[in-house]
């Protein structure tokens, strides 16, 4: 499919401009969905926490690498939350929603989700390597354990390594976030190709740079908070952000318009 065809496909969907603090409404709506149907969300969160704990167990003495792996998770998280989008959609339609609703979307009906997930995983790997290189090159002492990361990177007396690490992460994540912020819910909800969904995502960001920067920062904040609690808050944070992402999509992308002619 050529770019122009993808753009035409994308333009079938209207994008809306939203107020700056709309992310707060998305979080509130996401929390409401989580309360209405908590089990699938908790299960998603627990699985993510178990995966994170397994990584720590597997490579406990390489936190210079794990720091990037944990934050790189943010890049692939939109795919992981696909089941939660399905739950929110069912609740919105007044249908019954349970674990089966979330699991149904994982049946590989087509390769679109898999393709997009692989592309995001590839980008996530790029960030893991960049992060490891940054920490390895600029940390004043070896970063082996989470405590080392806290004292040598986060609370470093001299320099701005932690701020710089986050800033670089933000700059590298910006185009990926712009590509994925509404793409996965759109792929789930409508018949559209991967490139069309990505272009729609970019159009949404172009229409709302400040609200979506706030939304990106909120996602980073909640995820870093969950990591700071030793992953204990992950079972709540994952469903909160997953359901909220669905509401972001619903507010940012309007209904399809009929193709002209």
């Amino acid at each position, binding site marked *: 499919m050529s770019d122009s065809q993808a753009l035409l496909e994308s333009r079938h969907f209207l994008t809306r401009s939203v107020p700056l603090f709309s992310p707060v409404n998305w979080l509130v709506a996401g929390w409401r969905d989580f309360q209405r149907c908590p089990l699938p969300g908790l299960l998603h969160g627990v699985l993510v926490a178990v995966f994170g704990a397994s990584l720590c167990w597997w490579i406990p003495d390489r936190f210079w690498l794990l720091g990037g792996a944990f934050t790189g998770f943010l890049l692939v998280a939109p795919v992981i939350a696909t089941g939660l989008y399905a739950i929110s959609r069912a609740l919105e339609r007044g249908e019954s929603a349970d674990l089966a609703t979330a699991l149904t979307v994982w049946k590989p009906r087509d390769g679109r989700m898999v393709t997009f997930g692989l592309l995001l995983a590839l980008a996530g790997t790029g960030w893991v390597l960049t992060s490891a290189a940054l920490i390895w090159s600029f940390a004043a002492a070896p970063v082996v354990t989470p405590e080392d990361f806290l004292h040598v990177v986060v609370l470093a007396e001299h320099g701005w390594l932690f701020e710089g690490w986050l800033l670089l992460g933000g700059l590298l*994540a*910006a185009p990926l976030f*712009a590509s994925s912020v509404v793409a996965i819910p759109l792929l789930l909800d409508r018949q559209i190709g991967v490139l069309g969904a990505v272009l729609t995502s970019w159009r949404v960001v172009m229409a709302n740079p*400040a609200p979506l*920067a706030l939304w*990106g920062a909120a996602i980073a904040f909640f995820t870093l908070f969950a990591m700071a609690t030793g992953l204990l808050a992950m079972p709540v944070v994952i469903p909160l952000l997953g359901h909220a992402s669905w509401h972001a999509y619903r507010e940012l992308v309007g209904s399809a318009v009929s193709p002209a002619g």
Partner: protein
Amino acid sequence: MSGITEEQFAQFGLTFGVTAFMLYMLFILLQLARESKAGRFGTFVILLGLGLGMMGFVAKFVIKWILDS
């Protein structure tokens, strides 16, 4: 006379001082995005990148405060 201790006054000043400083930094970010004519995507990148850096700066304060108290 007012019943406020030096520690409470310092705490109050620090809380509001840091908040005001962060708001000022946010203002600088918005000005930077506007004056650099970065365009809509540039504005998004500046806000997200520098915003996360700023969040790290605040997180450092909070973590130090939690560890000290």
